[in-house]
């Protein structure tokens, strides 16, 4: 069939290809630079311009010579044949040019160009051998014409792949479309071909190939539309339109040929005209800006319902015809089977995806929820329950605003969502932001969250990943307070240094040497104090940050106590304070240097706050698996409400005393850090005017391990394990 009509068809097509490739193509050519570098490559290529001009000439000639289009006689076959071939060649060159010059979609345009070449080759062979008409049913030209469908189908498959991942569902969608469209085709075309077949098998297969090819192309176009061709940009959308018009025109043409009603140069030719026009426009259209990768079409994809509608139409047509068409029934049954299979695999994949997603969400460390544009919560994971107190059962279905947001935030939230839905402005979407929400028990809590708007088959929704930052905020506050305190504490001795040196430098004390000496002494004392403070700050920071590696070694607690007492003996003598050592000795695993520092800090503290003539005791004893160190003094004690504070940084019961005695306010904080790093505990007992009892414990790990003499000797070479007398 096709072989006998293609020559006529070609005559009809020829001028419109040129028209499509030139006039409309020129009109649609984008301005240079409008779409980036790729578009610049599309602007005014001279060779293409020449071809376009030639195409216009061909169109003009054909229109002048073909009044048949307007009701007059047809253009003569010989002349129309060459015009057709020339126009088809121009189309092939334009598509090839597009493929050559533009990187994007190169394979697609190459395939279309190849298809056009096949079309031209078939027409040329047929024209050369048979003079444009009157050839046999089966000829060499049919090979080219049938080959035309292969690159065209491949081009469509490429576009479908760009629009949607090729999954089983897509393949089944195509099969359903083929079955549905095929059942319609069978009712009107295929059955007629089968009934009218009187030649060889080769002729029958050849004749059948054309409507089947059109059927496949139409099914692919249907799937491309269902997969969202319009999302890929103008070029793909136009391409899909080209194929659609092509398929419809060919189908109607086939019907007309069967019914012997086709008139070359008639109204039907407008279908091909539109097809070529659209291809020309598509070839001139800038490449698609971006490819939107979608998930495999879901149950809501257009493919299935459209195919189903076509199938239903086919069934209605059968009913109207009233004859049993086995081919149509077979295709319909196949389509139905494919449709069921498609639903099954899609449903299964959805279930698997859902199960996987739920598993990921339920095991996520961060709270997650999703809610619809209306604010109704639709999902809620275990971490969210742990953070906000609401169980999934309690919270799903509630309104996110009423459930989580403080009153003052509700209006702002409504505006935010409304603005997004109205304008798609993503000012706070897909960004890490911080907000305050309300826990189920009513307390407000700061969270960090990311809102991701998503478009579902049921409308807009929002996925929200959250993180409770209450602790982080507390740490930040503590850090800020610490920086402020450190700043204050550092500036205090600096004030004395700056002031005293400033007075000396200003010369106001030149006549008062005693006052000048006093100012120098103040500057010196505060310089030393500043050095100690910086050293203590750095030391504390190193211990607390873990950058100080504790060197655990077996050591004798009694030796450490005596070493500390020996170290502090000069200070005690200076203060007129007696030092009594009472140790029972016990082995422990610890960093002896750090424990020695702890003991000397406590002793220094005790001596500083002890009145002259009083006694400070230091000792240790083993209680089961714990060694308890003690430092007692007869000072004025610590008020009970201050006992917990004294181990904090810069905490002072009476800062004037501490400063007067050269303290930095960090000594006890360092003691606590060291003891806690060793897994021990430190505390103080005191009553007003009753002295202080500082104690700390360390776990005994190896009570049966003897201390090495070398180690102890290095620690305290000249210990005198007796009480140190008051000076």
């Amino acid at each position: 069939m096709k072989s006998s009509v293609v020559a006529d068809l070609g005559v009809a097509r020829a001028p419109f290809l040129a028209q499509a490739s030139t006039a409309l193509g020129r009109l649609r050519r984008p301005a240079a630079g409008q779409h980036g570098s790729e578009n610049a490559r599309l602007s005014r290529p001279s060779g293409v311009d020449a071809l376009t001009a030639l195409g216009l000439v061909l169109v003009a000639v054909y229109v002048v010579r073909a009044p048949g289009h307007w009701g007059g006689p047809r253009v003569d076959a010989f002349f129309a044949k060459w015009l057709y071939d020339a126009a088809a060649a121009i189309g092939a060159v334009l598509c090839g040019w597009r493929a050559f010059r533009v990187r994007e979609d190169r394979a697609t345009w190459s395939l279309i160009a190849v298809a056009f070449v096949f079309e031209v080759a078939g027409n040329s062979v047929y024209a050369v051998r048979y003079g444009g008409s009157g050839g046999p049913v089966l000829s060499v030209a049919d090979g080219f014409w049938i080959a035309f469908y292969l690159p065209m189908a491949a081009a469509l498959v490429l576009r479908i792949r760009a629009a949607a991942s090729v999954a089983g569902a897509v393949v089944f969608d195509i099969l359903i479309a083929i079955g549905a469209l095929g059942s319609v085709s069978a009712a009107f075309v295929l059955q007629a071909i089968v009934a009218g077949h009187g030649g060889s098998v080769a002729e029958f297969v050849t004749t059948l190939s054309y409507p089947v090819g059109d059927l496949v192309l139409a099914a692919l176009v249907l799937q491309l539309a269902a997969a969202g061709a319009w999302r890929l940009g103008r070029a793909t959308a136009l391409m899909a339109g080209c194929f659609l018009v092509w398929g419809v025109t060919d189908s109607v043409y086939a019907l007309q040929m069967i019914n012997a009603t086709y008139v070359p140069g008639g109204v039907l030719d407008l279908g091909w005209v539109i097809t070529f026009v659209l291809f020309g426009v598509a070839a001139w259209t800038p490449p698609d800006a971006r490819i939107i990768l979608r998930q495999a079409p879901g149950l809501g994809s257009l493919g299935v319902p459209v195919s189903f509608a076509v199938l239903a139409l086919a069934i209605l047509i059968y009913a109207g015809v009233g004859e049993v068409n086995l081919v149509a029934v077979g295709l319909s049954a196949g389509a139905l089977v494919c449709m069921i299979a498609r639903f099954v695999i899609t449903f299964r994949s959805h279930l698997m995806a859902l199960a996987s997603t739920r598993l990921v969400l339920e095991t996520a460390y961060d709270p997650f929820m999703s809610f619809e544009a209306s604010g109704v919560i639709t999902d809620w994971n275990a971490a969210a329950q742990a953070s906000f107190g609401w169980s999934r059962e309690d919270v799903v279905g509630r309104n996110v605003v009423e459930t989580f947001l403080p009153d003052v935030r509700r209006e702002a939230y409504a505006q935010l969502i409304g603005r997004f839905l109205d304008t798609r402005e993503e000012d706070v979407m897909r960004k890490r932001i911080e907000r305050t929400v309300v826990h189920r028990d009513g307390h407000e809590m700061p969270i960090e969250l990311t809102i991701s708007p998503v478009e579902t088959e049921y409308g807009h929704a929002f996925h929200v990943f959250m993180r409770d930052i209450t602790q982080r905020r507390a740490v930040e506050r503590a850090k800020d307070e610490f920086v402020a305190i450190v700043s204050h504490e550092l500036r205090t001795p600096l004030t004395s240094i700056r002031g005293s040196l400033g007075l000396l430098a200003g010369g106001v004390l030149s006549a008062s040497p005693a006052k000048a000496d006093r100012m120098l002494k103040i500057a010196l004392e505060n310089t030393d104090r500043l050095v100690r403070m910086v050293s203590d700050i750095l030391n504390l920071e190193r211990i607390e940050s873990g950058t100080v590696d504790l060197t655990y070694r077996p050591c004798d607690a009694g030796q450490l106590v005596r070493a500390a007492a020996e170290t502090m003996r000069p200070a005690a003598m200076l203060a007129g304070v007696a030092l009594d050592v009472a140790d029972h000795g016990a082995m422990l695993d610890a960093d002896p240097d750090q424990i020695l520092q702890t003991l000397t800090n406590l002793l220094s503290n005790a001596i500083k706050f002890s009145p002259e003539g009083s006694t400070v005791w230091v000792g240790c004893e083993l209680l089961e698996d714990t060694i308890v160190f003690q430092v007692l003094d007869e000072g004025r004690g610590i008020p009970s409400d201050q006992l917990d504070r004294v181990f904090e940084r810069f905490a002072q019961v009476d800062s004037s005393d501490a400063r007067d005695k050269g303290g930095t306010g960090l000594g006890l904080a360092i003691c606590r850090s060291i003891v806690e790093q060793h897994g021990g505990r430190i505390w103080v007992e005191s009553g007003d005017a009753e002295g202080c009892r500082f104690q700390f414990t360390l776990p005994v790990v190896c009570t049966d391990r003897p201390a090495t003499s070398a180690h102890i000797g290095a620690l305290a070479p000249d210990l005198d394990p007796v009480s140190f007398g008051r000076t």
Partner: protein
Amino acid sequence: MASRPDRARRILVVDDDASIREVTRMTLEMVGGHEVSTAGCGRDALAQAVRERPDAILLDVMMPGLDGPATFERLQADPSTADIPVILLTAKLQATDQARFVALGVRAVLSKPFDPMKLPGEVAGLLGWREATDGG
């Protein structure tokens, strides 16, 4: 040398740090020519203010027990000391703190460390003593 007032003013310096007390005292006496008394805590400052009726009080902010702002509020609450101008001396850097102190009603907030050669002039200027100075 900074400007000197034509007559000595009596200034009460309140600071829990003995070194700062001493340096500030020396500064105001030797550079400013003022008569200076000192207190080491807010409670002592309240008593001395009532007893000595100073022309101005330089008050440290961070002190144990009664801190600077609390001491100032008590001074304001006592009719016998309410009219004594108070300047806060602070080592805190935060601008928000300084704004809060000014909002309490103190005359000014000065930062530590200070330049001893300029401090008396600044105090005089803030308290309106400038017209009484000889510019020397």
